[in-house]
C-alpha cells in the first residue's frame, strides 16, 4: 500500500501547489440552472408571448377580411402576416416539450408549400390539418404567403378569389385558426412545463440542457442554414433551386426573415435578452464555453464563435432583400454567405460539443 500511496500523495501535493492560481478561474461555476432560467426568461417566454399576440392579430385581420372584403383589409392582413412571420423566426428553435410533441414547427413553417395540395384542399373543403402529415406543407406561414400573394397576379385578382365564393376564405380561416390553436397549446403548456424545464439540469440525453443545445444546433444547421440558404442556393443539389426560398410568393422579405432568425440565434448564444438585446447576468451558452475552453483571448472558443457569427451576419446584410433575385443574378455571393454561416456550424458541432461533452450516447463507449 505504501508503494502506491506515496506517488499518489506526491502527485496530489504537486497538483495542488501548481494550480492554485488557476483553480479560482475554473471553479464549479457552470451553473446550468441559471442557464435554463435565463433561456426561459429572456428568450422562450418573451418570444412565445410576443408571437402569440401577433399570430392572434393575423386571426383578427382574417376576420376583418371576412367582414370587409376590401383591398385595405387584404393589405392589413398582409402586414400582420409579415409581423407574425418575423416573430416566428425568434421561436422556431425552441422545438421542445409541447412544440415537439405536436409538430409545431412543421405545421408553422414548412416550405416550399405544396400548392397543388392546398388547391385540392380548398376545392374539396375536406382536409385534416391536425394529424395528416401530408398537410404540413399546406398550412402555416408559407401557406398564408401563398394565399395572400400567390393565388393571383395582382391584389385585385387575389381579392377576387375571396369575394367570388367562400372556399378560399374558409381555408384561410382554417389555416389561421390552426396556427392560433397550436400556439395556444404551446404557450399554455409552458406554464406547467416551465418548472420542469428549469430544474432539468443533468447531463443526460433527455435533460433540458442537452435537448435545448441539440435543438439550437439543429435549428442553426437545418432550419436556418440549410432551409434558408443551402437548399435554394443549390448546395444540396446540382443546380440552384430559387423556388425553394422561404417567401416564394411575397418575394420581398427573404432577407428580413433571415435576419430576424439570425438575431435570435445570436442573442441566444451571446446571452442577450431577446427583445432588448441587453446582456443578462448569470450563465449563457457563451459564458459556459468561454470558461470550459482554457485558451485565452481570440483563441478562446467562446470568442471565436462570436466573431464568426458577426462576420456571417455581415454577409447576410449585403444580400438582396429578395433571395430569388439574388440567386438568379449572383449566386456566388449567396453561396459565400452560406459558407460564412457554415463556418459557425463547424464550431458549434465540433468544438462546442467537445467541451460540453453533451451526453447523446446510447451505446457503450470506451473513448476511442
Amino acid at each position, binding site marked *: *500500500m505504501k*508503494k*502506491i500511496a506515496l*506517488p*499518489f500523495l506526491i*502527485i*496530489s501535493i504537486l*497538483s*495542488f501547489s501548481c*494550480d492554485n492560481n*488557476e*483553480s479560482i478561474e*475554473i*471553479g*464549479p*461555476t*457552470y451553473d*446550468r440552472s441559471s442557464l435554463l432560467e435565463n433561456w426561459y426568461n429572456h428568450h422562450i417566454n418573451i418570444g412565445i408571448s410576443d408571437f402569440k399576440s401577433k399570430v392572434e392579430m393575423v386571426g383578427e385581420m382574417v376576420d376583418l377580411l371576412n367582414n370587409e372584403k376590401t383591398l385595405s383589409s387584404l393589405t392589413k392582413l398582409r402586414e400582420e402576416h409579415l409581423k407574425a412571420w418575423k416573430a416566428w423566426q425568434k421561436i422556431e428553435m425552441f422545438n421542445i416539450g409541447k412544440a415537439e410533441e405536436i409538430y409545431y414547427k412543421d405545421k408553422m413553417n414548412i416550405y416550399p408549400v405544396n400548392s397543388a395540395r392546398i388547391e385540392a384542399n380548398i376545392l374539396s373543403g375536406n382536409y385534416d390539418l391536425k394529424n395528416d402529415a401530408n398537410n404540413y406543407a399546406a398550412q402555416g406561414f408559407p401557406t398564408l404567403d401563398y394565399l395572400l400573394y400567390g393565388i393571383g397576379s395582382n391584389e385585385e385578382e387575389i381579392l377576387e378569389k375571396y369575394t367570388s365564393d367562400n372556399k378560399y376564405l374558409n381555408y384561410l380561416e382554417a389555416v389561421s385558426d390552426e396556427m392560433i390553436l397550436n400556439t395556444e397549446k404551446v404557450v399554455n403548456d409552458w406554464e406547467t412545463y416551465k418548472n420542469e424545464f428549469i430544474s432539468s*439540469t*443533468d*447531463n*443526460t440525453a433527455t*435533460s433540458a440542457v442537452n435537448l435545448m443545445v441539440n435543438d439550437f444546433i439543429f435549428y442553426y444547421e437545418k432550419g436556418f442554414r440549410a432551409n434558408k440558404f*443551402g437548399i435554394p442556393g*443549390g*448546395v*444540396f*443539389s*446540382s*443546380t440552384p433551386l430559387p423556388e425553394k426560398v422561404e417567401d416564394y410568393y411575397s418575394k420581398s422579405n427573404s432577407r428580413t426573415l433571415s435576419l430576424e432568425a439570425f438575431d435570435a440565434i445570436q442573442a441566444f448564444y451571446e446571452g442577450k435578452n431577446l427583445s432588448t438585446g441587453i446582456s443578462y447576468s448569470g450563465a449563457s451558452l457563451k459564458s459556459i464555453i468561454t470558461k*470550459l*475552453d*482554457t*485558451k485565452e483571448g481570440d*483563441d478562446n*472558443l467562446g470568442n*471565436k464563435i462570436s466573431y464568426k457569427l458577426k462576420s456571417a451576419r455581415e454577409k447576410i446584410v449585403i444580400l438582396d432583400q429578395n433571395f430569388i433575385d439574388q440567386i438568379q443574378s449572383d449566386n456566388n455571393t449567396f453561396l459565400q454567405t452560406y459558407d460564412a454561416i457554415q463556418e459557425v*456550424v*463547424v*464550431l458549434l*458541432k*465540433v*468544438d462546442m*460539443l*467537445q*467541451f*460540453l*461533452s*453533451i*451526453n*447523446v*450516447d*446510447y*451505446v*457503450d*463507449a*470506451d*473513448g*476511442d
Partner: protein
Amino acid sequence: MGYSIIRFWSKGWIEELYILPEFHFSYYGFEWVKPIGEYTYILFLICFMSTVFITLGYKYRVSIITFFLSFTYIELMDKTTYLNHYYFISILSFLLIFLPLHSTFSVDSFLKKKSFSKVPSWSIDSIKLLITIVYLYAGIAKINSDWLFEAMPLKIWMTSKYDLPVIGELFLQENWVHYLMSWGGMLYDLSIPFLLMYHRTRIIAFLLVVFFHVFTLVLFPIGMFPHIMIFSAMIFFSSRFHENAIKKLKSAIIKLNRSLENYTSQSIEYYKIKNEKFVRTVLFLFFLIQLILPFRYNLYPGELFWHEQGYRFSWRVMLIEKIGYTNFKIKDPNNGTSFIVDSSKHLTSFQLKQMSFQPDFILEFAHYLGDIYSTDETKVEVYAESYVALNGRASRRFIDPEINLYKEKESFKNKDWILPLNDEIKGI
C-alpha cells in the same frame, strides 16, 4: 458474457446496430462478414447458449470454439461498435480454446468421472499474461503529454459530469482532481498486474481493482468492461483461494441435491494436455502478436491520435476525446456540378458520429456514396469536407478537400490524404 448478450438484446441493440442500418463499416480484409438479416438473432442465440455451456463446463471444447467464432463474427460485422473490451473477450476466448478449463468442477468431468486437481501452470499463467499485457499497454499508452500534462481528455469528461451527486459539483470540476486521476490512472495500469502477482499486495491490489473499475463505471458509459476486468483479476488469486470457494459452492449444491453426495470420481492429479507442443507454439505466436501489434503505429508518419492508423487492438482506452463533422461532396466530372450529400439518410446517428472522425470509415463511406451516385456512363468524384477536434484542441480540417476519395483505395499503407494535426503529442 451471457448477461452481456442479454443486455445487448434487451436494449434493442441487435436491431438498431446490425439489422436496421442499410450500410455497415467493415474491417479491412473482413468485408465478407456482414449481418445476416433476421438470422442475426440466431447468431446471438448460439453465442448465448455457448456461454451457458462454458459456465457449466459441458462439452467445453466445442462450446468455447463456438463462442469464439460467433462472438468474433458479431464483432466483425460492423466496426462502428469496436470496443477494446470486446476485442479482449474475443482474444481471451481464443486463448481459452487451448486451455483445459473443464478439468475439474465441471459437467464434463462429472460425466467422464475424471477430475484433475492440477493443470500445467503455464495454462493459468497465460491468462495472467494476457491480462498483464492489457493493463501494461493501457498504462504505457497513457504516458503521453496530453494525458499527463493537459489531463486530457479526463478534464473534459469529468467537468461534464457536474450532475453526479456529491462529487459532481465539488470534486470533478477541480483542476487538481483531473491531474490526480490522470496520473493515478496511469500508475494504476502500470502497476496493478504486478501488485496482483505478488501475494503480499494481492488483497490490496484487488480492492484497488474493484474501486477503480466501480469508479469508472460511475463516471463513464463503458458497459460491461468493469465487471469483466474485476472478475478476470481473480485469476491472480492462489489455487487455495479458488478451491475454498469451490468447496463452499459444492457443499451448497449438494445441500440442494442429496443424490450427488454419493458421486465419486476418479481424482487424477495432473491434467495432460494433448499435442502440448503444438498448443505451446500457437500460444507463443499468439502472445508474440499481442506484444508487437500495439507498436505497429510506428510504421505510420504523423500523430497517432489524429490519424488513428494502428490505433485499434492496442489497449488504448479512454485516451482521446474526438469529435468530427464530415460531409461529402459528389461531383460530376463531365459538367463540374456538385452537391453535398445528406449522410444521415444512409447512416444511423451512431455510425455518423463514428464515421466523422475516423479516416478508414470516411473512405469506406465515400466509396459507398460513389457507388450509389455513379451511373454506367458517369463515374462521380467524392470529396470530403471534414473537420475534427482532438482533446480540447480547436477543430481543423481533417481530410484534404482536393482529393477524390472515390479513387483512393483502402490498404495498410499510409493514408496521405489525411491532413496533419500540426501539433505533437509526445509519448510512447
